[in-house]
């Protein structure tokens, strides 16, 4: 008879299987979570970098007849 399916051991075997599955799911979710956040941070950083710089030149109104410095 299979020892793992023995009435006394079966509960612990089932518990070990459940725990293993959960640890696997948890590790996968943790990894995906951190990767997704890292990707989003990078995209946000790049979007900020790609934004056009604010213009530095200033325009001043010159009244008619006033000499303009060149």
């Amino acid at each position: 008879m299979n020892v793992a399916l023995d009435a006394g051991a079966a509960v612990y075997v089932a518990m070990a299987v459940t725990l293993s599955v959960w640890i696997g799911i948890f590790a996968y979710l943790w990894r995906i979570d951190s990767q997704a956040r890292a990707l989003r941070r990078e995209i946000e950083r790049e979007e900020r970098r790609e934004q056009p710089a604010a213009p530095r030149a200033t325009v001043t109104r010159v009244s008619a007849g006033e000499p303009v410095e060149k």
Partner: protein
Amino acid sequence: MAQRMAQAAKLLIGVWIAAVAVSMFVVVPQYEGLGNAGRIIIMHVPTAWVSVLAFTVSALFSGLYLWRGQPKHDDYALAAAESGFLFTVLATVTGAIFSQVVWGVYWNWDPRQTSIFVLLLIYAALFALRSSIEDVARRRQLSAVYSLFAFVTMPFLIFVAPRISDSTLHPNCAFIQGSKCEGVDLGVGTLGLLGDRKVELISLDRVGDVVTAKVEVTEPGMASVATLSPTYDTASHKIIDRPNFPGLRFRLVVEGVDMVANSVRLNIEAPGTGLIDNGRTLLTFLASIFGFTALFFWMMNVRATLLSVQWALARREGSRI
């Protein structure tokens, strides 16, 4: 700081659910009549609860998307619907395993099983709808509207439809000690469930004012079948004979007779028949509900983040996904 708190909370979810898994097998005592199979209730009910929560959250975000038009709301609505679908599948699978142990078959189109199957089809159609529309804005809008309609069917399919039929094998009365099971109305030749026992009314015999119901009681797992004969006085409306379920302290009673319809109301009498009337079981059960709820919110957040990254990349490349 907030980042660290979030990471700690995620770690806590991991430890919490691991503790629930250990407790499910080691701390929760065996259920009378069901043995170790009764432990699956710790997974089955919380996953079903989370699916209800997930579809509700999905509908809320769909409504928010229609109101505000922000793509992130659509991401969350889709993420919640996908998580809800996953948890519904889990509830269905654990239910089918439980059904195999208690009723002897994985699937028998019980009203509860049928309604959950219809709910799965409705949400599967949502994903099919999303994948069939090319235009992103139109896809989001239509699926938000569909999601709201799908949500309207959810309470009916989960809470109402399975309770309409008396001849369901799914335990509909609350399990917690102190709550009262309403019993089942059975006509001659129909099936029902009392606690975890399948009962079938074979015949009704009347001698004077005394009615004897011949009831076939099937043990969980189809281990054995017994025929019990509870009796009821129709003149004084009193229960006369209360036969015990084989080897148990539960008793089978007739609470009312309708000779015109040839049916009786059968019920179970016990000091505490429930799966959850034990303190350790109840605590593990509540911990499981809490853990799965937290897990759902984490999963939804991860999926929504992934979707937003996907959209951002698609926008950058100027292509449609």
